């Protein structure tokens, strides 16, 4: 196997980078860009060498666009997640397992730290430092297999996160996700924790189906949110008033708003101002917040300024091919490898999962519980499939995509069930070619040739 030199940020950009502002955090602390640089060039490559694996197969590979400085800061937030979570946990902040793609307002407002399954696994793998990509993969795989052994190989790879919690690889204080419709496995996997030696409390915020024009659906969720926040607050010790919740809502809304503005700017630009990795990172930040909404929103503001400047100067993102084929990605949790796609001549211009999350702000007045409930119910991704597909078609038009790839993970009964219907509707309404691909790769970087082949063939076809 060809050995590639590890990825590193070149000295040549250091001066420019360290002249920019650093990041603010929710506890009032700050980190300077010089400190970020030090971490990303000296400390992190030693502690987390896997993240600096420059092989094209590395799904978590850093963006090659090193001059997009916000991207480096996003890498910083990602790699410092473990340290920040552990520090907060030690200081009494309860860590809470949530779903990917749900609203986080309630959790942060109550003084909790929500962590989605993908980040639980990243955290779990980072508990062992100094690992190469293969070593880190193997560690993740062992956790995945331990979960499968106890439950079933029919489960989505998300089972690894549950196994990491069960095996106490990471300390989780409360298991309390929303039961969004996007995930077929979450409710049953949370249920499996009842037959374990650990006694981590569990709670499910139900998400009603077919909820259009049904005020009682929002009322149901709102009642559950009160219960959820009370449970988290009991652990965090925070007094949660409506105003406290609205503060959090306003902060996260700012993030959502900035991300959607960036998306509109990016889509409207003649030249894509960033590559796919950096673009997708923005939407992800505005939904997940990587453990710190203050830092994430700060970074989103900085990202917007950089992108505006690039658009003004007609700068194309590094690595974006000439006449790049524009692909819109559907499905959650898994996605095609952006580096491979770039080499094959394509760029990813949007993702229905992430864009859905950032497209719905929470009302900032009235009953905060009801408002969060209504916003969740309004996520385009969570509507009846026909409606979700129509919204996706609209996204495809706005992003000027040439084709759509719908990717889903083995064991996901939801995405697999709707892939065909959504592809058919998008094909008809947006007039673009579509394909759907099943993969077994969630959480893995090795042996992804099967899906790479299909994606590359599709790109050639577009």
């Amino acid at each position: 196997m060809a050995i590639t030199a590890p990825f590193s940020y070149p000295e040549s950009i250091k001066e420019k980078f360290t002249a920019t502002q650093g990041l603010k955090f929710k506890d009032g602390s700050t980190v300077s860009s010089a400190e970020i640089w030090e971490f990303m060039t000296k400390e992190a490559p030693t502690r987390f060498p896997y993240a600096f694996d420059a092989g094209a197969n590395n799904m978590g590979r850093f963006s090659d666009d090193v001059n997009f400085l916000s991207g480096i800061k996003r890498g910083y937030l990602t790699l410092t997640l473990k340290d920040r979570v552990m520090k907060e946990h030690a200081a009494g902040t309860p860590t809470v397992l949530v779903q990917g793609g749900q609203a986080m307002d309630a959790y942060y407002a109550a003084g909790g730290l929500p962590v989605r399954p993908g980040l639980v696994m990243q955290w779990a793998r980072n508990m062992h430092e100094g690992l190469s990509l293969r070593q880190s993969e193997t560690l993740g795989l062992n956790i995945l297999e331990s979960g499968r052994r106890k439950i079933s190989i029919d489960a989505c790879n998300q089972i690894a996160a549950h196994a990491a919690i069960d095996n106490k690889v990471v300390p989780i204080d409360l298991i309390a996700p929303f039961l969004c419709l996007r995930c077929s496995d979450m409710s049953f996997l949370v249920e499996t924790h009842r037959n374990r030696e650990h006694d981590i409390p569990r709670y499910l915020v139900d998400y009603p189906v077919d909820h259009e024009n049904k005020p009682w659906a929002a009322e149901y969720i709102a009642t559950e949110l009160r219960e959820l926040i009370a449970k988290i607050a009991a652990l965090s010790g925070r007094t949660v008033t409506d105003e406290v919740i609205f503060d959090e809502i306003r902060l996260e809304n700012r993030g959502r708003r900035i991300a959607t503005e960036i998306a509109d700017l990016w889509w409207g630009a003649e030249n894509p101002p960033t590559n796919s990795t950096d673009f997708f990172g923005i939407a992800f930040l505005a939904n997940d917040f990587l453990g710190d909404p203050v830092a994430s929103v700060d970074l989103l503001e900085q990202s917007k300024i950089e992108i505006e400047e690039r658009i003004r100067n007609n700068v194309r993102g590094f690595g974006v091919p000439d006449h790049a084929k524009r692909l819109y990605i559907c499905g959650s949790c898994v996605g095609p490898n952006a580096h491979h796609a770039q080499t094959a001549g394509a760029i990813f211009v949007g993702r229905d999962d992430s864009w859905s999350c950032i497209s719905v702000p929470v009302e900032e007045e009235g009953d905060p519980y009801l408002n969060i409930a209504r916003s969740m119910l309004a996520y385009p991704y969570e509507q009846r499939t026909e409606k979700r597909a129509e919204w996706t078609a609209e996204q495809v038009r706005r992003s000027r995509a040439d084709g759509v790839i719908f990717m889903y993970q083995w064991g996901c009964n939801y995405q697999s069930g709707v892939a065909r219907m959504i592809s058919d509707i998008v094909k008809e309404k947006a007039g673009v070619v579509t394909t759907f691909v099943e993969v077994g790769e969630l959480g893995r970087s090795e042996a992804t040739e099967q899906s790479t082949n299909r994606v590359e063939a599709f790109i050639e076809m577009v």
Partner: protein
Amino acid sequence: MGLKTLDKITAALESRPAELEQLRKQGKKIVGWLAYNIPEEIIYALGLIPIRIGQGGDGRLVEVGARHISTKNCVFVRQALGQFAEKTDPYIKQLDLVAIDATCIQLYRLEELINFYFDYKTIVLGVPRNFATTEGHEYFRKEVEFFTKKLELFAGTALEQSRLEEAISIYDNIREAIKTLYRYQSLDNAPLSWRQVSSVINAGYNLDRLTYLELLQELIKEIEKNLSAGTGSREIEARIFLSGSLIPPGDTKLIDIIEQLGGRIVGDDLWSGLNFFLNLNIQEPTPYSVADAYLDRVPHGSLPYLDLESDGRLANLKHQIKEFNADGVVYHTLRYCDAFTFKAGETKDVLGNVPFLEIHTEYSGSDFEAIRTRVEAFIEMIKSKKEIAELV
């Protein structure tokens, strides 16, 4: 065993599709429904004809259905989709409306697909995952009320309390009759088999409910008249209890294998079997009361429950195993039926020393021998245990 009423039930079934055709010509409407929490009493009380749908065991229909969903979905859902795609089934092709509840989320997806691809008129009944809470009950009451309003619009008539009361009475009696039949089939000198009771349940999917109740009562009378005393065969038998994912009409692979190998099925806690008829106590003839009663039954495995000790479905399972004097449990799970598959290990733990065999399968015949070996080894194990126990 020669129960004449069983022949009458078969005959009634044979003429039912033609009967439905006539009724439709007279302006009657047929509502096909799935799966566990649809309040059939309300459909019936509105003068609509309820037909419970859903079959299994047909690998070809599974393939047809998979084209519109994926091969990674439950085979029951895929086959249903295949039936709606082909529209050759005498009941499916006569449905004027399809009502699906969201107890199982994959079945909810089925509703979307048959609505989109095959132009069926559909309505959905939401079901709370937090079914044991006050807010869950509140939500479900509103859902059933809304569901009723949609049905009223469809039926062109309002729900009358007296009609609902009548319907509840009929269905209560049907439930009692089925429970009685289950008791009889588990006796040592049983007048009918579990399999025959299962086919009686399946007949109830399609027959006119009043006719069905009359036939059930006739069947029970016939059984009671001919009930003989005696303890049955001296031969050691393996009394098997079925649990897990549903076993709908048409899915006979596992049942055939168990019986061919000399095992005797004596009970089940399937949502397609006995559980459906248990613990349903509608207090008043109102949609809210119907909603409460449905939610308070033996819970469906697709609705998550976070505390092991107080889990009603498991408590019922343990109780039924004792009631039916079962020697072992065959826990049958369908591929991609996560609700029951993920709980296989836990169920085994909960049942402790009760012999437990998990069969994870789908509707193709390619694993027939593999299942045979597992079931045969299980029966050998049970019989050998009983032999040793008798000697001691």
